[in-house]
């Protein structure tokens, strides 16, 4: 397939891009890494009249200010995978990006573009939620920040106003008592996730007790989302030994036992995923039960290992 004809302009700054976007109205679309937008154009799923290329708008590298890891929106997936600051301060994201696309996609794809694309199966969206990330957004009215949880609206749509652009992703640096885990099920390595799960477990003053948890899911709804805190409340104060064992061949098969299994089952029961050509709703719920329990146990073990 061949993309429909469009006009093209390269913006030298985010402010210029926001102005062009405001002038362009419905016809204009931002081009970042292009690894989701360009396939949609080639398949003629989208017909913008104008692409505003922001690749020359920003050449910053990831940096840390205070207790926040700041990722410029044009940070490529390969940088997320390899950058020392990302690996140290958001190991969840560095690990999850391994599952995104292929070498070529990771060389061009950007974190801001991925979040703005708002694919409901996005590994980056899922891990940004579990990491407690925020986005900084630039528009004609100035700059604002919002949690990623408030960004995703529905399938490939966000709460960004028409002429707003994501400029930064702000992630609280991983705490010394926090552990992380990311799991997904795919048909083929590098494909879109059927279900993806990202988990954070934070230990309390007593090193073997859970103080807080966060679980994010992708592939289970019209957007990546956080599991409701109420569904995870049962884990607070729980001793790590109560999380339940890892599934073994010949056992229950999904490691359904323990506090992790109970939380995973509660989360799965709260979801209403769709049946589609990739998987049935029941299968997706089953994946949630298995992967959430697995991720919680692994995140706990990760935290315990860090506390030592």
């Amino acid at each position, binding site marked *: 397939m061949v993309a429909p004809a469009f006009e093209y302009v390269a913006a030298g700054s985010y402010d210029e891009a926001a102005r062009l976007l405001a002038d362009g109205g419905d016809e204009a679309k931002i081009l970042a890494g292009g690894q989701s937008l360009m396939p949609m154009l080639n398949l003629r799923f989208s017909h913008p009249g104008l692409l505003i290329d922001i690749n020359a708008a920003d050449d910053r590298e990831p940096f840390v200010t205070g207790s926040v890891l700041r990722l410029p929106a044009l940070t490529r997936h390969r940088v997320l995978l390899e950058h020392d600051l990302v690996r140290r301060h958001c190991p969840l994201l560095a690990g999850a990006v391994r599952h995104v696309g*292929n070498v070529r996609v990771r060389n061009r794809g950007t974190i801001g573009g991925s979040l703005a694309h708002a694919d409901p199966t996005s590994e980056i969206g899922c891990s940004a939620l579990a990491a407690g990330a925020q986005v900084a957004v630039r528009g004609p009215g100035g700059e604002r920040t919002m949690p990623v949880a408030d960004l995703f609206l529905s399938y490939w749509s966000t709460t960004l106003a028409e002429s707003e652009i994501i400029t930064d992703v702000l992630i609280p640096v991983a705490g010394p008592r926090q552990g992380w885990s990311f799991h997904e099920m795919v048909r083929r390595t590098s494909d879109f996730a059927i279900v993806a799960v990202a988990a954070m477990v934070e230990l309390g003053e007593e090193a073997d007790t859970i103080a807080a948890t966060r679980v994010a899911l992708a592939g289970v709804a019209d957007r990546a989302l956080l599991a409701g805190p109420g569904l995870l409340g049962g884990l607070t104060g729980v001793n790590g030994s109560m999380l339940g064992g890892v599934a073994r061949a010949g056992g229950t098969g999904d490691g359904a036992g323990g506090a992790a299994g109970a939380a995973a089952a509660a989360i799965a029961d709260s979801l209403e995923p769709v049946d589609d050509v990739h998987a049935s709703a029941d299968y997706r719920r089953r994946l949630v039960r298995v992967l959430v329990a697995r991720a919680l146990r692994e995140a706990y073990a990760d935290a315990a290992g860090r506390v030592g």
Partner: protein
Amino acid sequence: MTRRRLVLSVNGSDHEVWVLPSDTLLDVLHDELGLADVRYGCGEGVCGTCTVLLDGEPVNGCLTLAVQAAGRQVTTLRGLMGPGETLHPLQACFLRRGASQCGFCTPGMILTALDLVRRRGRPSREEIKYALVGNLCRCTGYTKILDAVEEYADRAADTPDGVPS
């Protein structure tokens, strides 16, 4: 839509082309410059047959606009060959190992594998598989491709500058 003039630096030489804003790098390399080693496969960035190096990094030719390549170095498989179209050592490994049958995927495989070996030195077989997961081959079953890349990486690791002859 109006065409615009563009100077593309491909395999070390500059080419003046007139392109539409919506022309992809793949369109221009294949259709305008006649580079048959850059191929349309899926148009979605999944199959790897349009792989080119942009300033040394593998990218999807089908997902990059030609206008975005202005002022950058584009390398296709042909750009790896020596004077008189002598084979690049990795091409020679592919030939020796029977890693190419119909040949459609071969340029993308070689460019991607070369990038990996340049960056990693001697990658493990698992690392090679991971790097090549986005390059589809419908002929070989991949085993001979992995063998060829391993052979090249072994030879590169034994060479002081990492470039075997």
